[in-house]
């Protein structure tokens, strides 16, 4: 049976997400009808990109556990590629970059094999030692520290952090009969993306006091706290269907996702501000690049993973 790895509540949750997309599309169409003079191109592009992203994600989740792991590996690849294309790199480091990319299939293979010990040290220890060594063999010392530092930051953020989302998939299903591995992944991704939208909407509607103007001038305390409240409430409602978390634990999970999501978002904003770019790329019309979409996830994935792992596995 193709759907044996999926619990009914995961199916319901996926259905709910699709329902929300339908509603969003209808609202956008209605807005366009009501205000033909206004420009809704970005909103419409954004929703269309959401359809594609959620479509591919749902297919991967429904298809099989391996397909879902491959999906996350591919997202890591796109994110790392975007990052490497954005930062200053050295001509001499072509081969080093090659090894950085090569780390992706390895990292997700450890996930697939459920080899937790290797999964958790491969990039922080082995790649951390390997890449500078490879640079030294090439022998270019100019900007060595910058090259080694930026590349490892990228690997940690785009590959190591994100791969935690995939590791949810291979955790022991018996511990989480309601949602299984896919349930936790859905819980993480949905709440992280929901938190982005909630903070944005709260900020638009009520935002007055800037929270971190030097990095992200549009972020406000009202947006942050409104998102935090909404996301945490939703985290508590969804937890029994998708996770093994108790009510008080799900309160913590909600706070962690809302706070982590915010920090991940402004961290990538700081990166872009440093480099002087507005969007990290153009792969997702209406959103920008891949980094613009997964910025929050680079913090929430490892944070929620270790929270749940410590409490239940």
């Amino acid at each position, binding site marked *: 049976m193709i759907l044996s790895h999926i619990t009914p509540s995961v199916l319901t949750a996926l259905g709910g997400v699709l329902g929300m997309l339908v509603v969003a599309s209808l609202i956008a169409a209605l807005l366009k009808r009501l205000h033909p003079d206004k420009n809704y191109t970005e909103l419409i592009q954004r929703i269309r990109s959401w359809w594609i992203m959620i479509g591919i994600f749902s297919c991967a989740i429904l298809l099989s556990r391996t397909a879902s792991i491959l999906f996350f590996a591919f997202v890591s*690849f*796109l994110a790392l*590629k*975007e990052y*490497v*294309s*954005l*930062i*200053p*790199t*050295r*001509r001499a480091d*072509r081969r080093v*970059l*090659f090894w950085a*990319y090569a780390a992706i299939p390895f990292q997700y293979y450890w996930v697939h094999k459920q080899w937790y010990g290797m999964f958790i040290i491969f990039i922080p220890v082995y790649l951390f030692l390997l890449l500078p060594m490879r640079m030294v063999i090439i022998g270019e010392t100019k900007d060595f520290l910058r090259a080694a530092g930026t590349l490892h930051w990228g690997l940690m953020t785009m590959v190591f952090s994100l791969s935690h989302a995939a590791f949810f998939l291979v955790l022991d299903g018996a511990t989480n009969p309601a949602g299984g591995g896919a349930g936790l992944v859905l819980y993480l991704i949905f709440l992280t993306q929901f938190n982005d939208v909630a903070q944005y909407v709260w900020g638009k509607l009520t935002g007055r006091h800037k929270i971190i103007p030097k990095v992200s001038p549009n972020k406000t305390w009202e947006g942050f706290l409104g998102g935090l409240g909404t996301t945490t409430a939703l985290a508590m409602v969804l937890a029994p269907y998708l996770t093994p978390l108790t009510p008080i634990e799900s309160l913590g999970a909600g706070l962690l996702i809302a706070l982590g999501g915010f920090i991940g978002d402004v961290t990538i904003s700081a990166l872009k501000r440093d*480099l*002087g*770019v507005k969007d990290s*790329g*153009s*792969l997702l019309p209406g959103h920008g690049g891949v980094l613009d979409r997964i910025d929050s996830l680079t913090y929430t994935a490892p944070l929620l993973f270790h929270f749940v792992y410590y409490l239940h596995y």
Partner: protein
Amino acid sequence: MFQQLFFILIVRPVVLVVLGLNVRHRERIPAKGPAIVVSNHNSHLDTLVLMTLLPWPLLPRLRPVAAKDYFLRNRLLAWFALRIMHIIPLEREAIDRHQDPLAACSEALQNGEILILFPEGSRGDPEQMGPFKSGIAHLAKRHPDVPITPIFLHGLGKALPKGTAIPVPFFCDVFIGDSVRWSGDRASFMTTLGQGIKTLAEEGYRPAWE
């Protein structure tokens, strides 16, 4: 047939997935021939990217203009260059004064085909734009009605520079300019064309690479 298969199975996945293009002003891509597409040249990937960029039905009508001495140097490469890439081989150094080195290009344009041309003449130093050779001006003068679309490519020289064999993934910028035509004067035409690509180059942000 071979060409289509090669592009579907290898070129498109490499260009669109392994590399990934960041295209600006897609609407300026020529929709039909005859036309000339010119761009800066840093990598063998340049030709593959341009051939992926133009509309799929035009693929059999695309004619990259490429150095004869390089691409016809052995039989296997020659077969690939002529049969799969449909190149127009160009003599880089005219030996016979009486022979027209651009005759094949003119003929292709008369047949409504699209030329892909790199006026720098060779890939040169990666991500450095060299001076343009004036062959393009001769062609433009002979075919004043043919639109010439300047395209700026960036990142391919990082992904696969001259002298390397393994491509390393980088997102590549592809900025397309407004088409130009023969201006009546060689110097002003060459300036317009070179300036067209330089203006495009200034549109984007490019991280340091040295």
